[in-house]
């Protein structure tokens, strides 16, 4: 089989998929759930419950606010003790709903059995409505509200639903396990996505380091129409939205445009699964698969975890030793966020928790030797050395002229830099400052 791939740049960090063979375990319901009010890209949700309210699992506790927003459902049944600020991954305090658990009573009408519902009854509009109501967001990590993607803007046509089963981040295996354990659910979810968007074809891309998933999904896909599964070359960032489209369809999303401009809608396999549950089983997004991993953990694994569960509980379950010097990363090692304390709640976008105990400190920073490797590995064809230099010197005209806004923050440049320069730190800074300047100029015009 010839593997597909994207063309420009890319790196190959050690894969370290140490939890690939660990089946998804159901993690116990937390005694206290802290549900952050801002769990999606865009506008934060607004709480609809108050202190003392009794809630059931799956009940709406915060509603969507504005177009790019999502509603939030209670992950546990119990009593709302308070709505207060809670430290999030970055150490900043953000509002959250605190729910003390009593039992595990689900809202009526939610099908919690594992029976497969194959028949698709919902219409196009009903699917989008369900996806909205059930608070589905992109589970690959970006947490973009899913219904927005499905509403194809006028003048565009969705041709392909692209399903991201790449999981190119080292260590993470949650998508891998999900594909192995719930292939039919994913396929039905894909069909729902196709119906909702009007796309006639679906392409599933899986990196070649998951041959079992490729085989299984290829076999299962034969039972469904118009779904094709492709193996992709092991190269980071194969799972980047634009890179994946390029690899699977050969189309390039033009700079500054969305995938829909080339007729593609990209969704993660986790999202496809969540859509299946939302539409077919009437189940809101209250839990997701998380990989808890790291070479220092005694029992790393993949878990089905309720939103709002403390990450410290998850780590304790996996045998994390707090005495060791460590860096705890929410997400994968290439794009994940380091957290300031493990005592933070799970959110919809938490795809994995990685504990790094070796190589906690970054390598020493040396002068740039102009080797040009950052330029050659950049999957967007940018010049990270130039962007980082200009950003650090606040030369935002240069960053703008050299397309800093195209940066997908994949981190390949920093990964490869032999001088250990924090290229992405500066590029990210330049990107945010340049973005501000460009937006303010737009608003003036």
């Amino acid at each position, binding site marked *: 089989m010839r593997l597909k791939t994207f063309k420009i740049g890319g790196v190959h960090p050690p894969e370290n998929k140490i939890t690939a063979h660990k089946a998804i375990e159901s993690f116990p319901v937390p005694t206290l759930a802290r549900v952050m009010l801002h769990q999606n890209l865009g506008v934060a949700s607004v709480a609809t419950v108050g202190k003392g309210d009794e809630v059931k699992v799956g009940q709406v506790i915060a509603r969507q606010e504005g177009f790019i927003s999502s509603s939030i459902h209670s992950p546990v049944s119990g009593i709302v003790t308070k709505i207060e600020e809670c430290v999030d991954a970055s150490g900043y305090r953000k509002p959250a709903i605190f729910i003390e658990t009593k039992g595990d009573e689900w809202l009526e009408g939610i099908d919690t059995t594992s029976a497969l519902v194959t028949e698709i009854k919902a219409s196009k509009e009903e699917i989008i409505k369900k996806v909205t109501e059930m608070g589905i967001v992109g589970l690959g990590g970006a947490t973009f509200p899913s219904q927005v993607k499905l509403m194809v803007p006028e003048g565009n046509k969705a041709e392909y639903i692209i399903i991201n089963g790449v999981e190119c981040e080292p260590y993470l295996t949650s998508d891998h396990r999900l594909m192995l354990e719930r292939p039919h659910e994913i396929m039905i979810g894909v069909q729902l996505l196709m119906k909702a968007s009007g796309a006639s074809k679906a392409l599933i891309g899986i990196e070649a380091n998951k041959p079992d998933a490729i085989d299984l999904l290829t076999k299962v896909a034969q039972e469904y129409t118009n779904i094709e599964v492709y193996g992709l070359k092991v190269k980071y960032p194969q799972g980047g939205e634009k890179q994946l489209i390029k690899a699977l369809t050969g189309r*390039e999303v033009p700079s500054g445009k969305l995938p829909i401009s080339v007729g593609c809608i990209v969704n993660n396999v986790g999202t496809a699964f969540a859509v299946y549950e939302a539409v077919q089983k009437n189940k809101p997004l209250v839990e997701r698969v998380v990989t808890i991993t790291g070479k220092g953990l005694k029992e790393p694994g993949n878990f089905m975890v309720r939103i709002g569960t403390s990450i410290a509980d998850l780590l304790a379950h996996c045998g994390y030793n707090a005495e060791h010097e460590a860096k705890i990363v929410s997400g994968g090692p290439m794009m994940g966020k380091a957290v300031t304390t493990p005592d933070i709640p799970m959110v919809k976008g938490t795809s994995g928790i990685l504990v790094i105990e070796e*190589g906690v400190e970054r390598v020493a920073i040396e002068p740039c030797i102009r*080797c040009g490797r950052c330029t050659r590995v950049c999957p967007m064809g940018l010049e990270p050395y130039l962007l980082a230099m200009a950003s650090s010197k606040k030369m935002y005209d240069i960053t703008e002229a050299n397309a800093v806004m195209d940066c997908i923050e994949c981190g390949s440049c920093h990964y490869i830099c032999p001088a250990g320069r924090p290229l992405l730190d500066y590029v990210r800074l330049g990107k945010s400052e340049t973005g501000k300047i460009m937006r303010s100029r737009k608003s003036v015009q």
Partner: protein
Amino acid sequence: MSMLTISGSPHVHTDDSVQKIMRGVIISLIPAALVSFYFFGLPAIILTLVSILSCVAVEYLIQRFVMKEKPSVTDGSAALTGLLLAFNVPANLPIWMIVVGAIVSIGIAKMSFGGLGKNPFNPALVGRVFMLISFPVQMTSWPKPTELSMTLSDAVTGPTPLGLVSEGLKKGETMQTLMNQLPDYINLAMGNMGGSIGEVSAVALLLGGLFMLYKKIITWHIPVAFIGSALIFAGIMHLVNPDHYIDPLFHLITGGLMLGALYMATDMVTSPMSVTGMLIFGVGCGVITILIRLFGAYPEGVSFAILIMNAVVPLLNKAFKPGRFGVVKK
């Protein structure tokens, strides 16, 4: 509980480092060094060691006492410059001259611009050209290879093959008689000829170059463009007038073309960043080299060619950006 560390992504890093790159280049130069030591004996070894030591010492002293920063000689870049500098001079050069060359290489060509990564010109080549202009006699009297000699003081000196051909043609001798004075191509490729310490053995250099390619220290673009364009240009000239212009293979295995294309032009600091830039840089080096060799006053042109192209690198970096994703070239 111990303190958590926080930083922006990514949280993993490649094993590679500046030190490893420099070490890799030095390792790849070992075959060429061994061949030279075989042909030029002890003096070549001493000269090489002195050159390396002086480069490291100059860098250390400047960082310590002039720039007042933490010396970073352990990164190996100064040692590499020293090695390459020695490789670019004849083995019978007086010791004090190589020290002067080292001071110019590191002191002027590298540290005065701010140190590693900031110099526009290849330090070893600047040192070499400085010596070539300042000490033209010593820099162009090449010892004849004598196989494992302990001393070169009485050694016979003679011209390099390129010098021989260039001088001979000027005197009106025919190509055929000149070629008869030279060893055959196999001997030339192995390094049995007069020349700078490190440049003589094209085979050993090629071996090292392949090692660097394998280790991904360099990419193929600059060497291939450099050598390819030199061969094509020299080949065209040879076809035009075989009596006056020697064949391209001769250009390849004599003089500093191999050393220059594999080691001097590929110096990361002074070569372009983008692939297109590298190719143009290589072609420029190759064409200028042959231009100087065929029409210039010097029999050898690699150093000048690379230095000239070094000066163009900032422009190449500006003009030839990598192809961006999602942008159609007009």
